[in-house]
């Protein structure tokens, strides 16, 4: 087990939230209300998660207000870092979420549409709270040198933008972290796209969070050891109780990856 003065690898459970409710619910522990994101975040806080991530998939404007309330209620009971993303389009959106208690805000489509938004946000609120979420899909043929492009709208809309070049550009504009999701692997349980993760992590100076495809604890190890990610994000393996956060940490630790065991 590696200890010592070093930054520990972060394990980040991510909840999809719609109209203030967890999509599909969380079943890893007996919660009074499995659909309440605040209850779920509390349970993850108690389990020793290193950060929490809420991804808002609400379409309506009214739903946004509900999300801000969820963030505020979470910040009242959880003393761990919280990243909130989904539908963040303006500096006012960011300010509202940060004031409600988010520590980092993740920007996705708005960064693809307007790179200067990333610059303005980083300058206003500091690099450290601006995460750019990149959804990438492999576009090269199987045996050709790999190439990934940015997709928006849940992976349905191609943009023609090279994922590596985009990652480098948003970092130069002030993104403090990249949340990198493989749209090929998302929901597959086949593991992270390691080639993609490594290509981006080796290219940028900021931490990269690996996302999309986790089905086993070994996948988490691969994301760090082979993908060079600084943090691993996962959803269903935690929400549905296949593995607990302490189990994941013990597994990483046994594989020689430094994690935080106190909580």
């Amino acid at each position, binding site marked *: 087990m590696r200890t010592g003065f070093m930054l520990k690898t972060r394990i980040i459970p991510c909840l999809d939230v719609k109209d203030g409710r967890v999509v599909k619910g969380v079943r890893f522990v007996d919660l009074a209300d499995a659909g309440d994101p605040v209850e779920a975040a509390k349970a993850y806080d108690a389990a020793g998660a290193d950060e929490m991530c809420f991804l808002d998939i609400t379409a309506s404007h009214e739903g946004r207000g509900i999300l801000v309330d969820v963030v505020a209620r979470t910040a009242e009971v959880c003393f761990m*870092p919280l990243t909130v993303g989904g539908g963040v389009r303006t500096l006012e959106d960011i300010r509202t979420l940060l004031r409600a208690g988010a520590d980092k805000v993740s920007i996705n489509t708005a960064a693809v549409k307007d790179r200067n938004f990333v610059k303005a946000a980083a300058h206003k*609120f500091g690099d450290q709270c601006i995460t750019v979420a990149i959804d990438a899909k492999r576009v090269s043929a199987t045996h050709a040198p790999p190439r990934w492009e940015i997709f928006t709208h849940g992976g349905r809309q191609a943009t023609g933008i090279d994922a590596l070049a985009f990652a480098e550009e948003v970092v130069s504009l002030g993104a403090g972290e990249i949340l990198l999701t493989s749209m090929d692997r998302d929901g597959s349980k086949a593991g992270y796209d390691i080639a993609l993760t490594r290509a981006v992590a080796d290219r940028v100076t900021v931490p990269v969070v690996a996302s999309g495809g986790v089905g086993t604890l070994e996948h988490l190890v691969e994301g760090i050891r082979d993908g060079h990610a600084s943090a691993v994000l996962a959803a269903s393996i935690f929400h549905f109780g296949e593995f607990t956060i302490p189990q994941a940490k013990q597994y990483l630790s046994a594989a020689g990856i430094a994690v935080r065991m106190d909580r």
Partner: protein
Amino acid sequence: MKLTIVDYGSGNLHSARKAFERAARELSSSAAIEVTADPDAVREADRIVLPGVGAFADCMKGLRLVPGMTEALDDAVKRRGAPFLGICVGMQLLAERGLEYGMVPGLAWIAGDVVAIEPRDPSVKIPHMGWNTLRPCRDHPLLAGIPSDETGWHAYFVHSFHLRIGDRADLVAETDHGGRVTAMLARDNIAGTQFHPEKSQRLGLKLISNFLDWRP
């Protein structure tokens, strides 16, 4: 006892207030926690917390834009000796100068400059973002009961700059991120943490409790 969190348009005030309220509750302390932008309230506060998130220049500008606030802080902390805790950029503002986005004068309560973290190993990622342990440089009441060193409890950091201390006597704890990074400082009734106690779960709540009890 009145603990005042200074609102100058920067920082995660909501989280900070909730963490202080919870620590006060757990201590059965009668501390009243208030968030205020009123310099007169700051001048009279028993304990003062200065949070701060973002860039040094932007935060310093925000603080100076509140009429009378830096004078009120001087009165309460420097002249009257009220216990003071700066968090993250709120700690960095105590330096003589900040060198992020140009050179900007700070409050100059602590000798030193706020400089970029420059890891020796280029593969070390900046910002320093996540959980790290503390290496104490001396004893301090705010660290009482907190296991430190390599196997100790972890604190949550998120920053690209740190306060390079001018007088080593002010240094309370360091951490390591490709080199030494200032984690905590103190001088008389003034203390500051680069990490976020309000986000550091057990370590954070313990440190906040210690601050509520601190009699410098």
